[in-house]
C-alpha cells in the first residue's frame, strides 16, 4: 500500500518538479525536502496562489488532491512547518495554512529578473534596428557588443593562450642555442627581437613545391610534404603557369610574375628565375630569412641545370634529380625544432654526453684526490714510524707512496740502518712493493768529498777564466779614425768574442777603449765612450746579457801605462778582459 502510494505520488512529484516553479525548487533544494514533502508543498503553493492567499482546508482534501495518504500529508505539513516554510494551525478537522514572508533570495528568480531586463534592452535595440533601414556599423557594433563582445573576447583569449603555450614549447626547445642567433639577426636587420622570435617560432610548413619551365610551362620537378595528391601535378603546374600568364597579361604587371596567392591558411609563393619559376604552397608565416633560403635553392638549381633548362626540349632525363633540392628544402623547413628534429636531438645528446662526461670526470677527480690523500697519510705514517724506529741521525730519507708501492730515496748512514729500514717497512701491510733507492753513505766522507768537489769546481772555473781571458785578449776591435759606429769589420770581431763568451755564461767582460793621442782628450773620450757603447749594443743584439758587459771609464794615462796597450798606441779600438764577478 505504501509502495503504491509512493509510486503514485512520485509520478505526481515528477510532474510537479517539471513545473516551472522556482520557489518550489528553491525550497526543495534548500531544505532537502523528500519527494512527498515536495509534492505537498507544490500543492500548497498552487492552493495559496503562489503564497499570496492563506487557506483553510483539511488534510483529507489535500491528500485527495495529491493522491497520497492523509497521514503522509499530515507528516509533510508538519515538516514544512518545522522548516519554517509554512505556518499552519489545526482547528478541529480543518487546518489553516499560510506562507510567511520569505527572507531567502531565490537565485533563479533574481536571474530571471536580470535576464528580463537584458531581454527588454535587447528587445528595444532590435525594435530600433527593425525601424532603421540602415544601421551605421559603429551603432550596430555598439548594439551587438554587449551580447557577443564577451564571447568574442573569451575566444580570442583562449586562442592567444594556446598560441603562447605553443610558442613557449618551441622556445623551450631552442632557446639556449638560437637565442643568440636571433639577437644577431635583430641587430643586423633592425627587426625587433620579439618579432623575430615570434616569426621563427610560429609554425611554417611547405606543402608542395612546383618547378616549371618558363617557356613551355611544363613541370620540371615537384616535391611534396606528404605525397598525397588528388589531382595530377603536371596539370596543376600547367594551370599555375596559366594563372601567372593571365595575371601578367591582364593587369600589365610591372613585375614579370605574381609573388603570392593567398587562399585560406595557405598561400602559393611564386619565385621567378631565369629559365624557370618555382611555386611554393605553404602554410603560416615564413621565417625572416626564408626568402634568402629560397633564392639559394633556386640559384643552386640554376647552376646545376642551366645548360639543360636554357632550351628545354622536354627530355626529362636532362633534368633528372632536379627535385632533390626541393625535397631537401621541404624537409629542412618543415622540421619542428626540439621534436625529433636533428637540432633538438643533437642538442639533447650533447647535453647528455656533457653531463656524463662531467660525472665521469668528477668521479675520477674525487677518486684521484682520495687516493692522493690516502697516499699522503701513509707516507706520513711511515715517516713517523721510521723516525721512531731507526737510530737518530742515521738517515735522511724521503718516502713516496703510490698505491701499494713505496719508493724510498735519500741516504742512510750504514748497511745495518738500511736493513732495519726494510724490516720496518714490512710492518705496513698496505705496502706490497718497495723501490729502495736509499744510498748507504758515511756523512763525514760525504761532507769531505763535497768540499773537495767544490774546490775542484773552483779550480776548474779559474782555469776556464784564464783560458777565456787569453782568447779574448787576442780579439781587438779596431775602429777607423773618427768613427764610433760598429761596421762589418768590427761586428766580425764582436761575433768571435761572443762565440767564446756564450760557452761560459758565468764570465763577464770589461770593455776598455784605447785611442791614439791625436784629437785631444775630449775628442778621444767622446769617441771612446761611443765605441764602447756601440760594442756593448752589438753584444746585446747577439744575445748577451747587458749585465755581463761592463764599460770602463776612458783614462788615457792608465792606458798609456798599461803594457797591454803598448802595441796599440797609434790605433783606436776596444779590448775585452774576462772576469768572474764575486
Amino acid at each position, binding site marked *: 500500500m505504501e509502495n503504491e502510494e509512493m509510486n503514485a505520488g512520485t509520478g505526481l512529484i515528477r510532474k510537479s518538479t517539471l513545473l516551472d516553479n522556482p520557489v518550489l525548487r528553491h525550497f526543495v533544494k534548500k531544505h532537502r525536502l523528500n519527494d512527498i514533502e515536495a509534492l505537498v508543498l507544490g500543492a500548497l503553493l498552487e492552493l495559496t496562489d503562489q503564497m499570496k492567499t492563506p487557506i483553510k482546508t483539511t488534510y483529507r482534501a489535500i491528500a485527495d488532491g495529491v493522491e497520497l495518504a492523509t497521514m503522509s500529508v499530515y507528516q509533510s505539513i508538519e515538516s514544512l512547518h518545522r522548516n519554517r516554510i509554512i505556518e499552519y494551525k489545526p482547528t478541529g478537522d480543518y487546518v489553516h495554512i499560510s506562507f510567511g514572508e520569505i527572507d531567502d533570495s531565490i537565485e533563479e528568480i533574481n536571474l530571471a529578473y536580470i535576464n528580463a531586463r537584458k531581454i527588454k534592452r535587447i528587445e528595444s535595440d532590435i525594435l530600433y534596428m527593425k525601424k532603421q533601414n540602415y544601421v551605421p556599423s559603429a551603432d550596430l557594433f555598439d548594439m551587438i557588443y554587449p551580447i557577443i563582445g564577451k564571447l568574442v573576447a573569451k575566444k580570442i583569449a583562449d586562442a592567444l593562450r594556446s598560441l603562447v603555450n605553443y610558442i613557449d614549447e618551441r622556445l623551450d626547445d631552442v632557446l639556449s642555442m638560437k637565442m643568440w642567433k636571433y639577437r644577431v639577426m635583430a641587430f643586423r636587420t633592425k627587426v625587433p627581437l620579439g618579432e623575430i622570435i615570434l616569426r621563427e617560432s610560429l609554425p611554417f610548413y611547405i606543402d608542395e613545391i612546383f618547378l616549371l*619551365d*618558363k*617557356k*613551355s*610551362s*611544363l*613541370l620540371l*620537378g*615537384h616535391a611534396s610534404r606528404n605525397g598525397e595528391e588528388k*589531382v*595530377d*601535378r*603536371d*596539370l*596543376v603546374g*600547367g*594551370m599555375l603557369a*596559366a*594563372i601567372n*600568364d*593571365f595575371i*601578367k*597579361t*591582364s593587369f600589365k604587371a610591372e613585375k614579370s610574375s605574381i609573388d603570392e596567392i593567398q587562399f585560406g591558411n595557405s598561400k602559393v609563393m611564386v619565385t621567378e628565375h631565369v629559365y624557370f619559376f618555382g611555386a611554393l604552397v605553404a602554410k603560416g608565416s615564413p621565417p625572416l630569412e626564408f626568402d634568402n633560403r629560397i633564392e639559394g635553392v633556386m640559384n643552386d638549381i640554376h647552376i646545376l641545370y642551366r645548360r639543360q633548362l636554357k632550351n628545354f*626540349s*622536354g*627530355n*626529362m*632525363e636532362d633534368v633528372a634529380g632536379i*627535385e632533390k633540392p626541393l625535397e631537401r628544402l621541404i624537409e629542412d623547413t618543415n622540421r619542428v625544432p626540439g621534436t625529433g628534429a636533428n637540432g633538438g636531438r643533437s642538442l639533447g645528446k650533447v647535453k647528455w654526453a656533457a653531463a656524463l662526461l662531467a660525472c665521469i670526470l668528477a668521479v675520477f677527480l674525487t677518486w684521484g684526490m682520495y687516493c692522493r690523500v690516502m697516499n699522503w697519510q701513509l707516507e706520513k705514517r711511515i715517516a713517523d714510524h721510521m723516525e721512531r724506529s731507526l737510530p737518530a741521525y742515521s738517515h735522511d730519507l724521503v718516502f713516496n707512496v703510490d698505491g701499494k708501492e713505496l719508493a724510498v730515496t735519500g741516504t742512510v748512514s750504514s748497511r745495518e740502518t738500511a736493513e732495519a729500514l726494510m724490516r720496518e717497512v714490512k710492518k705496513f701491510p698496505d705496502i706490497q712493493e718497495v723501490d729502495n733507492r736509499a744510498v748507504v753513505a758515511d756523512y763525514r766522507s760525504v761532507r769531505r768529498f763535497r768540499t773537495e768537489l767544490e774546490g775542484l769546481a773552483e779550480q776548474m772555473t779559474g782555469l776556464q777564466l784564464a783560458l777565456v781571458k787569453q782568447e779574448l785578449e787576442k780579439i781587438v776591435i779596431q775602429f777607423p779614425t773618427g768613427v764610433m759606429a760598429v761596421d762589418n769589420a768590427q761586428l766580425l770581431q764582436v761575433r768571435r768574442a761572443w762565440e767564446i763568451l756564450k760557452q761560459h755564461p758565468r764570465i763577464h767582460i770589461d770593455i776598455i777603449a784605447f785611442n791614439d793621442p791625436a784629437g785631444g782628450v775630449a775628442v778621444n773620450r767622446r769617441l771612446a765612450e761611443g765605441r764602447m757603447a756601440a760594442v756593448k749594443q752589438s753584444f746585446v743584439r747577439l744575445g748577451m746579457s747587458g749585465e755581463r758587459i761592463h764599460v770602463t771609464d776612458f783614462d788615457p794615462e792608465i792606458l798609456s801605462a798599461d803594457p797591454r796597450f803598448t802595441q796599440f798606441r797609434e790605433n783606436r779600438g776596444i779590448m775585452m778582459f774576462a772576469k768572474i764577478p764575486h
Partner: protein
Amino acid sequence: MSTAAYKFKIVMLGDFAVGKTSLVKRFVYDAFDDMYLTTLGVKVTKKEIHIEDNGNRVEVMLLLWDIGGHGRFSEISMNYLKGAGGAIIVSDLSNADTMKHIQDHISLFHEINPGGKFFVALNKADLVDAGKSGSDYIKKYLDHPASCPDDVVFLTSAKTGNNVETLFHTMAVQMMREKQ
C-alpha cells in the same frame, strides 16, 4: 609525379566550335584529368602514351592546352602558345570559314614558336564526302597550300574516333625525333 621520359606541350588551335575539345576528349580516356578555367580560357589535359623509338619503348607525356575563345585571339591566349612544342590546328570540314582560317593559325603559331611542329586536323570528316583527301581541301581553301604539306594533314572525326589516335601519336613521334 609522372615517370615519362619526355614531356611535350601541345596547343589546340582553331576557330570556335570546330571540335578541339571533342578531339582532346576522344584522345584522352581519363576525362577527370582535365582542368578547365573558363575565366582563363584554357583547358589543360594530360595523356601519357608509349611510342617505339629504335626498338625502345619510350613513355611520352602530352600536355594538351585546349585554348578556348571566340574565334579571335586575345593577348592572353597568345601567351598560352609560348613554349609549345607543337600545335594541332583544327578546322571544321563542314564550315568553310574555319577552313580558310587555317593559314592564320599556322602563321600565328609560327610567329610565337618558330620551328614548332604543327599538324592540321580537318575535323568532322564524318559529315562530308569521303571521296576527297586532305590535300584536296588544303589546296582548295589555303592561299599557300605549300605551307601545309600532306604529311601533316589528317582527316579526323572526334565522333567516330577516326584518325584521332593516329594524329596525336604521329605528332608525339615527330616531336620526340626532332628533340633528340
